[in-house]
């Protein structure tokens, strides 16, 4: 492991594997999650969800539900409509039903809410709400949806005459077509990245406490973006923003699922406002899986134009996304398919043309970036699967094909054919290091020998480049809110500090990592720094934690505010040492006069003086706030190598080796980074091997609980061998790039490439995820028939 520490362990700055300070309370049951919150007089809400995918609502009978002992109210769309809240805007400029008034458009859609004095009564009442549904045909694929004569799903939208949700394209079509026309070889791959779900351990929930006298709305909510949610609540509900306080307590995982505002939040808040008592709603597991933001569901056709010796000339992509009933992707406004256009990957070629369409279907809306920076997972999968296809078609080793086409280290900053400017990287070194660790040459020799014996061994490679840390204000906003972020640092007289963040952890370890950044920049020991986040009344504004943006944006803000504090402390130190500020140097924990290390004061001395003994004209105190507008995204990357053994009799495949090299720039806490990689690799393995949300022809969700939606355990999960290179981001204050999502983005293609590689000699070129054993066996059987 690369040692990047400049501070001693007792300071615990960057590069130290400091144990997570949040773990003690979480492990000992002293966390404070949403469902732990109990307020005096708190009521409970249960949602009535549609059991069918597409139907007209002819009536809702709430009489029996209202009669249940303990039930106070049944809220329907009609009631919400009286307050102008039956519909709400989505993060992609569409509208979404809060409670259905006209039609239900997917199984699990919110139809009514029962408010009761305890959760059992609410659940009993919800069972008795009688909805008269007039069944309509369900549309379960975007292909059906866009076919001629398909029933209009969004018939309530004026000017909507078909089921098209959006179109978007980028790149130079003419130049791309010319390159394809002139190409020696064209390689093509059509694949579906199936619908998956972030499935955080903790489901979504809210305790809405609206004070009917003061108008103060205190909203406890499982939110990855509390500040953005406060502003959206103000804009949507018309509440004055100073009266809205969003408190996001300990969160049991988000993975993108807790970025959107869900109907349950809106109904609970409205109910609290109308009834005048706090209202709690905690989603059931099934409710979470069938109605909240899913990931993926992209149908992609990608093509590469190549020379005979495997040099890529251009890329052409046609993508159709299944958006579900409402277009509610959480994504930057200007990009209608997230950052999918990063699909040119790690390769140097001049032309690309990316065409995207999205269709409405009778499935849950969402399209959240499930552990992914806005559809980069799909993009990375497409290019890396295409590279495998090209290697097989051209008969070039897949590692060699990548090495021939990589963007070279000296080409950075590198502008891609779709307009990203990659900040830094050394791809050939990364791939070679991963291949060496795996023993690539020996593995290829073993594979050849195994094939002679009828055994199937596969070696899969993926080399991904991510684009994270959204983002520069000139380009990136969500619902009009610029994607900047902030940090506020207060150093108390005794030298202990409080750091307040606009971002919000869901398990990533902000309370540890961000204190380490301050420790590095100021010399205050990390253990003396308390990190506060999640409460909008008590933290500066920011867009929140998702898309691997905390370290690239919030971490940069933290470094910058810490530098401001260190600079003021240096001036105070100069005053205490009776020297000129420019003669003061800082070591890990001291300020001293240049050339005289003995003439020193500590950061703690300077902090005390900030409140007691200041130079003439200096303002008291040692605190500051920084808003950081990143100049560019950051571009972490990695090289993954997977070895699998495939059982030809059953199609069952087992991972023998998984070598994962990640370069996320400077690692603030290497242990936390490795934990993030382990988690991401596990999720990548899950999606490639077992995990999907699928539907029957009637639109019933298959995957509505953990019996059907599979989360791998330690038993199934392969052992991971981690490697690293460190290529700092040149524009980030501490050179960090973000790591939360890399492994989820990069690894699915590596697993699938490995299985396809095992069968490549039989002519197999693609198996869609999840690569279930029956699909593998069918592929073998078809190829050998």
């Amino acid at each position, binding site marked *: 492991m690369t040692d990047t520490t400049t501070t001693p362990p007792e300071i615990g700055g960057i590069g130290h594997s400091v144990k997570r300070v949040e773990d003690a309370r979480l492990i000992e049951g002293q966390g404070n999650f949403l*469902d732990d919150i*109990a307020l005096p007089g708190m009521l409970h809400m249960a949602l009535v969800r549609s059991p069918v995918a597409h139907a007209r609502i002819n009536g809702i009978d709430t009489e029996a539900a209202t009669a249940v002992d303990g039930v106070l109210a049944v809220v329907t769309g009609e009631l919400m409509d009286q307050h102008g809240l039956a519909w709400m805007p989505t993060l992609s400029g569409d509208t979404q039903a809060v409670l259905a008034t006209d039609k239900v458009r997917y199984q699990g859609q919110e139809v009514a809410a029962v408010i009761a004095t305890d*959760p059992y009564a609410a659940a*009993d009442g919800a*069972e008795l709400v009688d909805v008269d549904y007039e069944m309509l045909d369900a549309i379960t694929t975007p292909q059906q949806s866009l076919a001629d004569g398909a029933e209009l799903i969004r018939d309530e939208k004026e000017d909507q005459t078909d089921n098209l949700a959006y179109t978007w394209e980028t790149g130079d079509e003419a130049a791309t077509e010319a390159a394809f026309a002139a190409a020696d070889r064209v390689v093509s791959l059509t694949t579906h990245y199936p619908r998956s779900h972030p499935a955080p351990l903790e489901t979504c929930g809210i305790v809405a406490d609206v004070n009917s006298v003061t108008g103060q709305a205190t909203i406890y909510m499982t939110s990855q973006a509390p500040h953005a949610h406060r502003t959206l609540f103000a804009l949507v509900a018309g509440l004055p923003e100073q009266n809205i306080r969003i408190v996001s307590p300990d969160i049991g995982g988000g993975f993108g699922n807790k970025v959107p505002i869900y109907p349950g939040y809106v109904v609970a808040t409205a109910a609290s406002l109308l009834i005048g008592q706090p209202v*709690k709603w905690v989603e059931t597991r099934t409710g979470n899986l069938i109605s909240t933001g899913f990931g993926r569901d992209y149908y992609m056709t990608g093509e590469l134009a190549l020379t005979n010796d495997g040099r890529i000339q251009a890329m052409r992509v046609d993508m159709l996304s299944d958006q579900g009933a409402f277009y509610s992707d959480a994504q930057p406004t200007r990009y209608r398919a997230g950052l999918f256009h990063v699909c040119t990957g790690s390769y140097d070629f001049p032309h690309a043309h990316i065409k995207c369409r999205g269709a409405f279907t009778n499935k849950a809306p969402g399209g959240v970036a499930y552990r992914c920076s806005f559809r980069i997972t799909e993009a990375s999968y497409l290019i890396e699967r295409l590279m495998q296809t090209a290697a097989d078609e051209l008969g070039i080793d897949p590692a060699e094909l990548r090495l021939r086409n990589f963007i070279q280290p000296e080409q950075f900053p590198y502008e891609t054919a779709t307009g990203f400017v990659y900040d830094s990287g050394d791809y050939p070194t990364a791939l070679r290091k991963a291949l060496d660790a795996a023993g690539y040459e020996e593995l290829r020799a073993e594979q050849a020998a195994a094939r002679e014996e009828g055994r199937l061994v596969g070696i899969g490679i993926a080399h991904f480049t991510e684009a994270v840390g959204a983002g520069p204000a000139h380009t990136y906003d969500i619902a009009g809110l610029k994607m900047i972020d902030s940090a506020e640092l207060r150093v108390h007289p005794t030298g202990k500090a409080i750091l307040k963040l606009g971002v919000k952890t869901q398990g990533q370890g902000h309370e540890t990592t961000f204190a380490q950044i301050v420790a590095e920049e100021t010399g205050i020991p990390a253990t003396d720094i308390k990190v506060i986040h999640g409460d909008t009344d008590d933290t500066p504004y920011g867009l929140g934690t998702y898309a691997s943006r905390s370290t690239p944006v919030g971490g940069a803000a933290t470094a910058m505010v810490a530098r401001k504090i260190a600079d003021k402390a240096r001036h105070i130190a100069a005053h205490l040492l009776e020297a000129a500020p420019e003669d003061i140097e800082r070591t890990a924990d001291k300020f001293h006069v240049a050339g005289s290390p003995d003439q020193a004061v500590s950061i703690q001395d300077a902090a005390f003086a900030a409140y007691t003994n200041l130079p003439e004209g200096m303002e008291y105190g040692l605190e500051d706030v920084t808003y950081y507008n990143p100049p560019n995204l950051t571009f972490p990357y990695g090289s993954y190598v997977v070895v699998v053994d495939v059982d030809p009799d059953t199609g069952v495949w087992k991972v023998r080796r998984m070598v994962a090299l990640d370069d996320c720039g400077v690692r603030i806490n290497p242990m936390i980074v490795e934990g993030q990689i382990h988690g991401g690799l596990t999720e990548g393995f899950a999606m490639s091997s077992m995990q999907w949300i699928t539907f029957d022809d009637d639109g019933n969700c298959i995957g509505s609980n953990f019996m*059907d939606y599979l989360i791998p355990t330690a038993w199934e999960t392969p052992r991971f061998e981690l490697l690293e290179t460190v290529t700092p981001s040149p524009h980030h204050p501490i050179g960090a790039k973000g790591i939360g999502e890399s492994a989820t983005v990069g690894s699915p293609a590596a697993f699938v490439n490995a299985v396809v590689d095992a069968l490549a000699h039989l002519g197999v070129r693609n198996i869609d995820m999840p690569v279930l054993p*029956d*699909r593998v066996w*069918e592929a073998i059987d078809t190829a050998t028939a």
Partner: protein
Amino acid sequence: MCADRDEWGSRMLPAQFDYIAAASVEEAIAAKAEGGDETRFLAGGQSLLPMMKLRFATPSKLVDINRIAGLDAIRSHNGHLHVGALVRHADIAASGAVSGAVASAAPWISDPLVRNLGTLCGSVAHCDPEGDWNSVLLATGAEVVAQGPSGRRAIDIGDFVQDFFTNSLAEDEMVVAVHIPVPSGRSGGSYQKLERKVGDYATVGVAAHLELAADGTISAAGVAMTSVAPINRKATEAEALLVGNAPSAELFAEAGAAAAAAADPRDDVRGSARWKRQVVAAFTGRALAAAAEQAQG
């Protein structure tokens, strides 16, 4: 102020039900008889409680049998292994008294949490075609011991398993034990299970049991399958093919093909029916080979 029920976990919200803890089998049977068909016995609860959580099951009364003494023993008796109604899957996995297909299947039951609470007898009575134990019992020729107001009776497992989630118990009967034959001569058994992940039901499961005569030929054979028919199904043609013949790879492949033909799988989210038949064939061959190897010891 009343206690906040949230402290007890507000997300498990079954419909209302009555609960009694029986102190004896007689008391349990009487309570069941009194409550009628909306009354259910509660042993490990690993199938019943999740269904109640989802309100797929809404029993009016639960009769908890966990406090009844004497039902938690595994013992060998008269050439049989007796497994009491409160013997947990984990007890079987840890027991030195079990062998063959029983020992092979025990570690494959669901996950460690379920194994710690769930019972073999409960699983047998549940008659879920995706449950593992009934295949093992069919392959080994076990008996289910039921007790009602008029006493105990032994029911052959083939008669006990009636249909999809349906057994042949009378409404006032309770399963108190399962008796699994343990051959005195050379025998072996194996359970092969394909699952998507730990804790999942079988995609395909095959139980095999073989007994060898003095000349090394197969004197008795049992093959039964999980998750590939509306009930756990015995592969009788495969069994007939085996008896009287010497163990061999060819014979086992033939038996595998016969078992696959007897299977009636469906296309579903776990995989295609065509593929499941192929897995039945492969797993039958593997289970028989493992059983033969054990018997030849």
